[in-house]
Each structure stands twice: as C-alpha cells, then as structure tokens.
C-alpha cells in the first residue's frame, strides 16, 4: 500500500521539535548569505572609497547607479556576460546531449569512460584556466601552436585575439559533464515500455527520439539549464587566471567587473550598486528563461 508520505510521516512523529531542527540552518544561511545583501543595497546609496578615507562615507542617492549605467564599460560587460552565458549554455546542452547519447549504450569500459568525461567538472576553475592558457593555447609552446605549425599556418594568439570565445570554450569544457550527467539520468529513466510501444506503432529511431525521448527529457533539460545559468553567469576563476578581463574590458563579465571596481578601485559605493544591478539582472535572466521554457514546452512540463 502506498501512503501519502507527508501526511503519514507527519502523523508519525511529534512535530514540535521540527522548529529546533530547522532554525539553526536557516539562521546560519540567512545571516551569512542573505542579510549582507541588505547592507549591499544600503552601501549602493553611498559614496565610499576605501583608498580615500579622508572623504568619508556620504549619502549619494542613486548617483552610483547613474554613474554605472552611463559607463560604456558596463554595457560592454553586460553584453559579454550575455554572450558568455548563452553560448556556453547552448554548447553545454548540445555537447552534453551528444555525450549522454553516446554513454547511454552498453559497451565495455563504460564506467571508466564516464569517469574520464566527468573529470573536468572537478578541476578547480583556477587550474582549468591555467592549463588551457599554457598547455593548449600558448601561441609559442602550446598544443594549438603545434597543430597550426604542422598545418603550415601562423600560430594564433587565442586569448589575445578571441578572449571571450576562448573563455566560453574553457567554461564549457567544465560544464558539459554536468549537462551530460543530468541528461544521461534523464535518458536512463525513459520507460522501456514506452519505447517498445512506440516501436510497435512503427516509429523509427528518429521519430522515437523526437516524440518520446525529448518530451521526457524536457524536465531534465530545464533543470540543467537553470542551474547552469546560475553558475555560468557567475564565472570568475577562469577569467581571473586567463585574461584578467582584458584586453580592455573585452573579456570582463559582470562578476569580474564588480571585482575590479571593488577590489582594484576600492569603490565600495560603485561596486555595491553594481552588485544590486547584477542581482536584478540575474533575476530577470532567470525569469525569462523560465518563462520561455514554460511557454514553449508548456504541455510537456507539468
């Protein structure tokens, strides 16, 4: 007999102790990750530069926001963040799906192969940036220089010429495994009965993939995209060690821009205003993505 777990379990244990179990965690997370944001909002309305203690802290109204929005660099950075996030997500989705399909078969050594594919996800962003920068992309000694040399082509200074595109590749290398794993979990949960039924109905492999598998995968795609969005928008380490956001602002994204404002210019007010803007922008991004997914696939996503 299958019981509704919530009701049955609620009746099982006295619930008076539940609060005592919940609150320590809530308080800890709230104080450290949520409360400071209120202070960020407060600081964003003030002028305060740590390098100029003589000027003190003065109320500035919305001028910090005005200043950021009138800065051409901000719009370039916003555009970079958008490109980085969208192209990374698309790349991750396409490649992740491909790899998931390859791994959703029976073959010898499947576990090891999966482990190899998953590994880049565990490499700390700082190190993956460094490895790509030196080993693969270094225009003098790197592997890409070796290949272009063999082909008789001039070596390409990837990070100098295509900084943002290169960072997209490095970040994708790290996040494709995540998409692969989530989609693989999705593929493996397709009910075999359903597949058999569609086969009996005369569907070929492609029809089966698009009419049975994909609709089933939508939930998984949605989860992967939303979480990927949250993390990829916050890309920082890869940029820090490869290009430091340069040349100019050409590979700076929003988090790195905030780091430059806060920890290189020590502009507390400006960096805080930017922090508030980033939270607003991320919320908008996420709401849009969520809305698009729901609208396009409304029927399949329950």
């Amino acid at each position, binding site marked *: 007999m299958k019981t509704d*777990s919530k009701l049955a379990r609620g009746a099982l244990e006295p619930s008076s102790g539940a609060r005592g179990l919940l609150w320590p965690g809530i308080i800890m997370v709230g104080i450290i990750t949520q409360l400071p944001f209120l202070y960020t909002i407060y600081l964003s309305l003030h002028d305060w530069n740590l390098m100029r203690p003589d000027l003190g802290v003065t109320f500035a109204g919305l001028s910090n926001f005005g200043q950021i929005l009138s800065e051409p660099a901000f719009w370039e950075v916003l555009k970079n963040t958008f490109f980085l996030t969208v192209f990374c997500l698309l790349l991750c989705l396409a490649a992740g799906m491909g790899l998931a399909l390859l791994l959703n078969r029976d073959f010898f050594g499947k576990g090891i192969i999966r482990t190899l594919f998953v590994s880049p996800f565990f*490499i700390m962003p700082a190190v993956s940036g460094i490895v790509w920068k030196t080993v693969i992309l270094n225009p003098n000694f790197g592997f890409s220089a070796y290949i272009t040399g063999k082909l008789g082509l001039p070596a390409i200074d990837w990070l100098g010429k295509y900084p943002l595109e290169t960072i997209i590749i490095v970040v994708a290398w790290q996040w494709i495994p995540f998409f692969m794993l989530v989609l693989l979990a999705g593929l493996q949960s397709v009910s075999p009965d359903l597949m058999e039924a569609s086969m009996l109905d005369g569907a070929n492999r492609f029809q089966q993939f698009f009419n049975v598998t994909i609709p089933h995968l939508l939930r998984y795609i949605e989860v992967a995209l939303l979480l990927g969005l949250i993390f990829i928008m916050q890309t920082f380490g890869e940029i820090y060690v490869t290009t430091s956001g340069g040349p100019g602002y050409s590979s700076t994204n929003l988090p790195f821009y905030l780091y430059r404002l806060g920890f290189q210019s020590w502009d507390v007010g400006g960096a805080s205003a930017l922090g508030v803007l980033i939270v607003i922008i991320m919320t908008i991004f996420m709401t849009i993505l969520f809305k698009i997914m729901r609208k396009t696939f409304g029927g399949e996503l329950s």
Partner: protein
Amino acid sequence: MKRTLPLLITIATYALAFLYFSPVLWLLVTGFKTEGEAIIVPPSILFEPTLENLRLVWDAGASAFIGHSAIVSMTSTVLALILGVPAAYALAMLKVKKADDVLFWFISTKMLPAVGVIIPIYLVLKELGLLDSLIALVLLYTAMNVPLVVWMMRSFFKDIPYETIEAGRVDGATGLQGFFKITLPLVRPGIISTALLCFVFAWNEFFFGVSLTSTNAATMPVFMSSYMTQQGLFWAKMSSVATLAVLPALVLGWFTQRQLVRGLTMGAVKG
C-alpha cells in the same frame, strides 16, 4: 555492417573521452617531468619520472596552502552537515508549517550571486579583524553548502520506505533514539556523498578565497593563481602544484559520481 557500426561508435567514444580528458592527463603527468622535457610538444610519453618538482613546490610553501584548504574544507563540510541534516530530516519526515516555502527559500539563496554580498562581507570581516583568516572561509563555505545538504539529504530521507520507520517505531525506537538507530544508518551512503560534494565545492571555491584572503589563509586555488603569475613559465613546477591542488577534489569526485546528479541538481533529479 550491423555489428561493425556499434563497434565504431564505441571506438569513437573511447577516442573522444581520451581527448576530453587529455588536459587533465597532461597536468597529472607533466608534474613528474623535468622542466626541459615539460615543454616538448607533442608531449613525450616515455620519460624518467622525477619527484624533484614536487619537492621544490612543497618547500616553496605549497604544504601550508594545502593545509589551509584541508582545514577549511573539512571543517565547513562537518558544520554544514550538522546544520543541514537535521533541517533536511525535519523537512522530509516531520510535519512542518510551510515546508515547501522553507525548501524554496534554501534553494533561492543559491540564486543570490556571491558578488551581491561580497562587499559587505569584506567590510564586516575587516571590522572584526577576520580578513585573511580561516574562520571567515569556514563560515562562508558552511553557509554556502547548507542549502545543498538540505536539498540532497531531504531527497535521501524521502527515499526511506515508510514501512521501515514504522517497523522501528513498533519496536519502541522513537524520537531521537529512532533517528540515530534507524533513520540515520539508512541514509549513511547519502550522507557520505553529500559530504564529499560539499568538500569538493569548498576545496575548489575561488571567488571568496581570492577576495578575502592573502598569505595567512590563502587556499590552494588562490595560491595557484599567484604561483602562475610568478612561475607560469615553469610548466613542470606549475603542473606539480596544480596536481596537488586538483587531485583531492578529483579523486573524491570520482567516488561520488553516482550521486552526483542528485547533488548537483539539489535533489531535483535523481541519477
């Protein structure tokens, strides 16, 4: 034809996997080469391994930063479990008012980017004299991982068959005793994977580390980034440091693979 196609796909998969993993492999191998050999392209496969680089970087201070990383990651993981597991238990097994709201609040904290809170955190830590301290990182990483623990463990608690708990209850194991004797052992594999994942995330964290620490509490990723700007041309030495930096997270990651999907999607999807 019908037999060769699958074989070809399998071989292609092997090749692709090797290619995808090769930057990591290069890293792990180059650390054991001499500097001269390290910059040969294509990389030499047969070489006499040397521990010289490892010794050099260890003496250059890598040991201290590994220590920082280990202390911060382990302590924050234990604290996150202590705070998160009871909350997850309450949300999964007890009648809690607005349980769904609490749960979504936990996941929503993950959506507030670190850059939205870094400035106040920096100022407060400065005021408290806690900049560049291990305590600061422990607190931050704990708070960062509690939502993960709550979501992951809740899904593990939910997986326990109702009958099992009921049976324990009939045997007289109730309340705390029931929790420690029956419930907790059942979710032990879940706790282990959750802990491993928390450890990996704390170990690899870079943004808070680089913004809030310098010499006294710098973790491995922070040390790595400064090491590269100074010694980036010495590939063999750099690879040794990098190997020390990535190996713990990589190996633990391999072990927790099976539960990875559940962890990464905060329990939304089971792998």
